[in-house]
């Protein structure tokens, strides 16, 4: 059928093309569409019956006419040719080069949809990755094989934070570097350029594969781009034994493209017009991160998404949070206080942290210190709240010492330079330095031995 071209368009609407059935189109099959000028567009079969075939066209159906449109069924789903030569290259959403170099030629070709990983074949992620950033290492540790998104908002420095993670991420006792897969959907040219120059200046460019779909590229391509990027990541991780760090930005653009198609198809909307299957669809992407038994490589996934009007209950961050293993939430308030990285500590979380830190990975007191910092900081925030109502003079001595603790915590622990790389031991020592501003009887999350070993309470400071 690859040779046959059909001229059987019956209707066109938005990004959807309706064709007569009878060609035995398979669900998910790739099609190429030629218009009267001879330009080729890409599409995918999203519904098929004996009478009718529905194709989603990435470049939209603008300028197509019913008479002069020829459709060719390619007999395959979307596939990506894979080879080590991908490193250092830039592609579009369906794996075509964007860097005016030749396409990848390889006998290794995989469907971009992959197949679900058998849960019984997974290996539980346990190895601590040191990012050099205290709020992540100390409080929300990143583990090799984890999916840990950054929940951000427009204007917040999520790109700088992601770039810093990419630059600094390493295993404390492993020299082998990460290979980076960078996937950008609907981002501006300047954002892409920022990452590109970041990779260049830190000398990792030869270890990066980039898949980009810019803000002015066809939005429908965004639906396939993360799948293409993760197919490349799987190849690098499980066949070439690399540890792969995948950065995907911005998942909000992805979800919006999904909503657009769903609306065109007439799918029943659930919340805010997003289709009911947004959860499963996002899971297909996020769950491709992880570790597999008896494979050396791993995929660590850092999706970035901007929360529409900073609303964490919006369907995109909400469903993402249910799938990923935690989240790093950025705060507009800290950002306006010029604190970088503006990590909003209370709602941030790393679910895999519990098994990747402590005696065997970082330091014995790490889990308890993290819990204590959380508890003391939230207590301090309550005190600060109270102070804003009744005035800080009215507060008890104890509450005032908590407020001092919070200020120090924000300015010394959360705040750090963009080039500042703190080892996990430095982060933990800094934690104790801050906790020493609080009296020992207020620290119920750490043990008495911890207090004797690390706490240097000086009541004159409180």
């Amino acid at each position, binding site marked *: 059928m690859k040779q046959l071209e059909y001229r059987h368009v019956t209707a066109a609407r938005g990004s959807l093309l309706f064709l007569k059935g009878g060609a035995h189109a398979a669900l998910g099959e790739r099609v190429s569409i030629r218009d009267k000028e001879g330009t080729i567009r890409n599409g995918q079969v999203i519904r098929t019956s004996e009478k009718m075939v529905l194709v989603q066209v990435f470049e939209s159906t603008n300028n197509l006419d019913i008479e002069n449109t020829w459709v060719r069924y390619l007999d395959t789903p979307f596939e990506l040719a894979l080879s080590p030569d991908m490193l250092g290259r830039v592609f579009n959403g369906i794996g075509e080069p964007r860097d005016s170099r030749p396409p990848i030629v390889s006998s290794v070709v995989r469907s971009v949809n992959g197949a679900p990983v058998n849960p019984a074949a997974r290996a539980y992620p346990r190895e601590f990755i040191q990012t050099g950033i205290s709020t992540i290492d100390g409080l929300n540790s990143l583990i090799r094989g984890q999916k840990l998104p950054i929940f951000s908002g427009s204007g917040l420095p999520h790109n700088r934070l992601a770039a810093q993670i990419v630059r600094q991420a390493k295993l404390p006792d492993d020299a082998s570097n990460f290979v980076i897969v960078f996937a950008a959907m609907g981002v501006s040219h300047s954002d892409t350029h920022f990452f590109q120059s970041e990779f260049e200046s830190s000398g990792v460019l030869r270890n990066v594969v980039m898949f980009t779909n810019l803000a002015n590229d066809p939005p429908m391509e965004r639906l396939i781009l993360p799948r293409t990027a993760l197919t490349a990541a799987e190849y690098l991780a499980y066949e070439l034994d690399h540890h792969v760090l995948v950065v995907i930005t911005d998942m909000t653009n992805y979800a919006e493209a999904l909503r657009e198609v769903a609306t065109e198809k007439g799918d*029943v909307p659930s919340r805010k017009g997003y289709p009911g299957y947004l959860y499963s669809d996002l899971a297909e992407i996020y769950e491709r991160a992880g570790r597999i038994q008896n494979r050396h490589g791993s995929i660590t996934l850092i999706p970035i998404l901007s929360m529409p009007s900073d609303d964490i209950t919006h369907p995109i961050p909400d469903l993402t949070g249910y799938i990923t293993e935690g989240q790093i939430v950025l705060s507009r308030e800290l950002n306006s206080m010029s604190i970088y990285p503006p990590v909003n500590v209370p709602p941030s979380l790393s679910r895999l942290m519990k098994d990747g830190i402590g005696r065997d990975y970082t330091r014995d007191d790490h889990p308890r210190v993290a*819990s204590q910092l959380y508890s003391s900081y939230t207590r301090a925030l309550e005190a600060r709240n109270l102070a804003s*109502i009744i005035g800080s003079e009215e507060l008890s001595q104890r509450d005032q010492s908590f407020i001092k603790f919070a200020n120090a915590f924000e300015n010394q622990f959360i705040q750090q330079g963009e080039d500042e790389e703190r080892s996990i031991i430095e982060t933990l020592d800094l934690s104790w330095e801050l906790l020493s501003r609080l009296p020992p009887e207020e620290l119920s999350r750490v043990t008495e031995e911890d207090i004797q070993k690390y706490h240097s309470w000086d009541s004159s400071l409180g």
Partner: protein
Amino acid sequence: MGKVIEVNGPLVTIQLPNIRNGEQVRIGKLGLMGEVINLREANALVQVYESTDSLQPGEHVEGLGKPLSVELGPGLLGQIFDGIQRPLKKIMELSGEQVIRGLSVAALDREQLWHFVPSANIVSGENLHGGDILGTVQETETIQHRILVPPGSQGEIIKHAPEGDYAVEEVLAHLKDAQGRVHELKMYHEWPVRTPRPYHSRTQSEQPLITGQRILDTFFPLLKGGKAAIPGPFGAGKTMVQQQIARWANADIVLYVGCGERGNELVDILETFPQLTDPHSGHPLMERTFLVANTSNMPVVAREASIYVGVTMAEYFRDQGYDVVMVADSTSRWAEALREVAGRLGQMPVEEGYPAYLASRLAAFYERAGSINTLSGDTGSVTLIGAVSPPGGDFSEPVTSHTKEIIRTFWALSKPLADARHYPAISWIESFSGYESRAKQWWADHIDPSWSHRRKQALSLLTQADELERIVNLVGPEALSSTQRWVLESANLIKDGLLQQSALDEIDSYCAPEKQFAMLEIILRFHEMGQELITLGTPVEQLTQLPDNSKIRRMKSTFGNDQSEQLQEFGNNLWEKLDKIRAEYASTSEIAR
């Protein structure tokens, strides 16, 4: 032989004469498994449990002649199955780390031999009925698998196998029924998942399910055979609470159904449970545990089936006379699978896109919980615990609100508690238990008669404190009287010392009921004595600055479950100390008088 007419995501329209509603079909070259959900003139609508990518109109279809069923027999424990009961470890051997479509693998290992011991009453000429015990197989060290006559079969034994090693397919007995038909009984039988298994009668359970988690057992108890829900926004610790229940619950069998959740969570169980021991039997936890996994990246339709596959297997162990706990994480994903199919069918959405039958489906599912008399005269129970993942943490959404009307125990997770890393982040304000009045008897008989009274006191302290905190937030702490401030302090002691429990702490992870009550007693008595001292004129600061406050906060991880004497002694020392303070103040107040 039929053929595919249309492919629309997981829904496939087929043409196949004489197909019945609910029947299973195999579709196309790949042999994808599906289930007929709708008949429309010559066409049938099939929901397919596997991805329909690359399926074309015109591919062939065959009916399997039976509804979606599970195999019930020895070899279930310790296993991990997918949403339609295919063994995932076996699939891994066959297809590597990815699940290849169209694989047909039997749930029970056909090769493995089991040592079968016939029951004493199995002699030729004896009459057997469905649910009777044909014999036993020691499946794991803890669990003796009772081989049941399938419900619906009955008759006179005409032939039976002696004690010995058998594979599951071998015939163990022949029954001849009244019509003269011969039934072959094997070590396993099949049961359709959407039909609840029959039992003799329902009983009223009085046995609390002890989970070793203080906020659950002491404050919001659940009974064996009961139904509970754990709703919570993401990051509130649902999974952790459920895993703690799966670990420590005093049930015979634990079934964990991962429905649309993370793959790594199931791996966590698979990797850690074999190394943990059951506090009640002393054997590895994995010996009583098995899993059903339809992770979030696996096909949506199998997610809908996975809940029924799970509960049918749970009922099967109940029918053997066991107490079974099934944890379903998460029922919201199951409801979303319903919604997705309903949406593609073009059914009218009612609330947030969910179909009108959501509430009745939820109710019918939870109704499969219960404690019963089995057909063979034993007793067994299925306890259902369903996680709910409300979008945006909003408990008024359809799945949470319908579930809330069906279940009796509601463990509401709170985001602010989780943000302060107060785990388990179960809110003492929003949670409730409708079983307290029945659990009370057990606690009175086994632990202490004052349990119910003490529990109420603690809860009332917590509620009072919440109100007082509102006042503090408006006008500052100075507005409170000393007694009120002491109430706040005591409530904080309850929160930090009792409600908060670390799953990662070796000592604190499981807290025996005796220790739970002893701790509650110490905190409440400390509160009462403190109150008395304050009325005598002791300043609140003098009490809050006692080093014993932090000792009380740490007693959960200081004293093991077997150290009740030490805990008692710790209390006694404390009372002595407070008595001394009282003596001081009592004398001064007398002088003043």
